[in-house]
């Protein structure tokens, strides 16, 4: 056979005793045998791409999503000009650590740890906000001292200049607010101090960045609202979630009516740990965390709340008691409400019903560990549900349900067409849209829209396993939220979580909380502006 003959030839070529052979046309052809294979592969690749593109483009085009590419809101030169903004931080617990990092200040120990695991670089690349943390106020010596160390650390490039300003510890927030050398305050205390400090700060003309919740009573909230409205300060509530780029894209999707008429929004909390249930006064070995009446100004910590003897449990796990916050409604639903309100502008509900109980963490708490709140918006023809569990971490997303499609919005966006959709009926019938897999998936960091085409992509999108934050570096959303606040202070704009949004959120949460505590359906009277 020809092959064996040629084989002999070429095998012979390997040996040290070459046989004379003719460079026959046939052996040349055989030598080039791989080329047609390459050609076929090339052709198949082009065909497969074209098929995928046709399908993908058709979905994207028919949905009008061609231009849905929203760039990452990164460098903005505004923050870099002029004198540094002099910021005081009130309440320096664990959340303040993150806020300080967002502002550009990190504890030396964490700098070292991050050098070890190579995550320092991302943080160093964060925009310089041209901020100096010049004041720390905390009732606990240990926390205040930690705050001072962090504020004085000028490891960041732009931090140097800021670091040259002296950092001072204030023994009370009143003392800090009276200081003319403070331009703005970041409030990260337990919730019962939020409104009183925010109100006092607004009166003193200091800009306010306050962690949620804005207030714990209607009276406080109304006072906060009018005080901020009457002042010239920039107020920002700490809802960093909406700074996530996927949120801007979700907004665009809602605007383009991809989901059809949205009548139900479901938000959830799914936790199943002691830490997640706010049992936080013990360290890893089960011993009480540091702090006693000598190092903690307990009277100041309690503020206007009823007197109780000092308790390390209350100091660290304050969330468990309604004297200091509204439980999951104040701690977690606030974020959910803000997310939905930023997207749909639902505002204050007409009516709210809450129910739940303490079924699992039967300690000394007031807050329920299973809670359901239903918010009615008859004018919007929409219901918002909050379903929360502290005793199961089964992952339930945040879902916007429309007649034509539903959108799960988290770190990524995943949109499935509805099987009974009117709008997509044709595409579903033709098999262009498969309702069992996401019709559109938007992955964090990519800034791109993709109609999902391959099995792997589908899998990743459905699992939210889309870890593609490579080209766009990892950007801290808290930093972006603080930056927005600071940019507004410098340029006179209005931040996203402004006092109007804070008021709507405050009322919605107070309604849900009142309903749970008083075990009744509560309504909002829009004329009297009162919860009834």
């Amino acid at each position, binding site marked *: *056979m020809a*092959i*064996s003959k*040629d*084989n*002999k*030839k*070429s*095998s*012979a*070529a*390997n*040996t040290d005793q*070459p046989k004379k*052979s003719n*460079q026959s046309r046939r*052996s*040349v052809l*055989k*030598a*080039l*045998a*791989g*080329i047609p*294979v*390459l050609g076929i*592969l090339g052709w198949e*690749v082009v065909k497969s*791409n074209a098929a995928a593109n046709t399908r993908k483009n058709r979905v994207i085009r028919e949905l009008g999503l061609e231009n849905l590419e929203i760039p990452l809101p990164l460098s903005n030169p505004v923050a870099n000009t002029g004198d540094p903004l002099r910021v005081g931080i009130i309440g320096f617990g664990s959340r303040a650590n993150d806020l300080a990092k967002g502002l550009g200040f990190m504890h030396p120990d964490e700098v070292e740890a991050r050098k070890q*695991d*190579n*995550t320092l*670089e991302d943080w160093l690349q964060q925009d310089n906000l041209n901020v100096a943390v010049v004041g720390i106020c905390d009732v606990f010596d240990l926390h205040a001292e930690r705050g001072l160390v962090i504020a004085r650390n000028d490891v960041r490039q732009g931090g140097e200049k800021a670091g040259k300003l002296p950092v001072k510890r204030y023994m009370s927030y009143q003392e800090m607010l009276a200081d003319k050398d403070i331009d703005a305050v970041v409030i990260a205390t337990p919730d019962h101090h939020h409104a009183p400090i925010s109100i006092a700060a607004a009166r003193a003309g200091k800009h306010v960045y306050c962690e949620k919740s804005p207030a714990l009573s209607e009276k406080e909230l109304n006072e906060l609202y009018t005080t901020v409205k009457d002042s010239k300060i920039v107020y920002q509530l700490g809802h960093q979630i909406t700074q996530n780029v996927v949120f801007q894209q979700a907004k665009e999707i809602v605007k383009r009516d991809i989901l059809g008429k949205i009548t139900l929004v479901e938000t959830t909390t799914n936790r199943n740990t002691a830490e997640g249930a706010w049992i936080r006064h013990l360290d890893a070995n089960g011993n009480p965390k540091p702090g006693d009446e000598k190092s903690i100004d307990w009277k100041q910590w309690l503020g206007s709340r009823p007197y109780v003897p000092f308790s390390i449990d209350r100091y660290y796990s304050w969330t468990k008691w309604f004297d200091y916050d509204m439980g999951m409604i104040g701690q977690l639903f606030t974020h959910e409400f803000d997310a939905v309100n930023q997207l749909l502008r639902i505002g204050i509900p007409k009516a709210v019903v809450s129910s739940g109980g303490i079924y699992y963490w039967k300690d000394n708490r007031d807050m329920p560990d299973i809670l359901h709140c239903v918010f009615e918006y008859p004018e919007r023809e929409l219901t918002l549900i909050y379903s929360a569990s502290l005793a199961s971490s089964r992952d339930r997303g945040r879902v916007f349900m429309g007649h034509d499609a539903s959108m799960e919005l988290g770190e990524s966006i995943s949109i499935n067409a509805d099987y009974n959709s009117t709008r997509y009926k044709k595409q579903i019938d033709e098999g262009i849209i498969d309702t069992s897999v996401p019709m559109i998936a938007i*992955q964090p*960091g*990519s800034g*791109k829209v993709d109609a999902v085409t391959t099995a792997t992509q589908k*899998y*990743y999108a459905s*699992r939210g*396993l889309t*870890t*593609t934050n*490579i*080209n766009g*570096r990892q950007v801290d959303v808290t930093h972006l939220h603080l930056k927005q606040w600071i940019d507004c202070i410098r340029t006179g704009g209005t931040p996203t979580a402004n006092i109007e949004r804070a008021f709507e959120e405050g009322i919605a949460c107070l309604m849900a909380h009142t309903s749970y505590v008083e075990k009744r359906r509560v309504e909002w009277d829009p004329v009297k502006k009162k919860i009834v």
Partner: protein
Amino acid sequence: MKDNKLYSSLQITTLVILRLLVGWHLLYEGISKLITPDWSSFGFLSESKWILSGFANWIISNPGVLNAVDFLNTWGLIALGVALILGIFSRFAAFAGALLLLMYFLNNPPLIGLEYSMPTEGNNLVVNKTLIEAMALFVLAVFPAHRVFGLESLFSNTNLKKK
């Protein structure tokens, strides 16, 4: 292997077909990475278990290294695929490809007790298709599949003539 040993045409043909098939597979793996926007080995490496997980973590925690690995992976696969199909440097390509596949295998071996969140194709225990493909490349490297039906045969003939 002795070079003067002769193989039947069927033996040689099957080896060549194997070479073309593996080449096709590697080349398309490379091309699909190239044409997938935002493709990164991050997902694969973050799933790394067993002895190479430390190394994989080091790669993904260094954006520069990760970019280099992504680039080398994509173009490495393309180069290996082309070499295997055309039959140029194909013995080297077979060895290199086998080692690369072995690396993939060692990052995600289907061993008892290792769980992956990525779905696997088929049911594997210790042995999976990546390992078999790596072995197929070792086989190709040690048999003269590149001497026939490949550009190298052309060069070796030319050399032969000169002598």
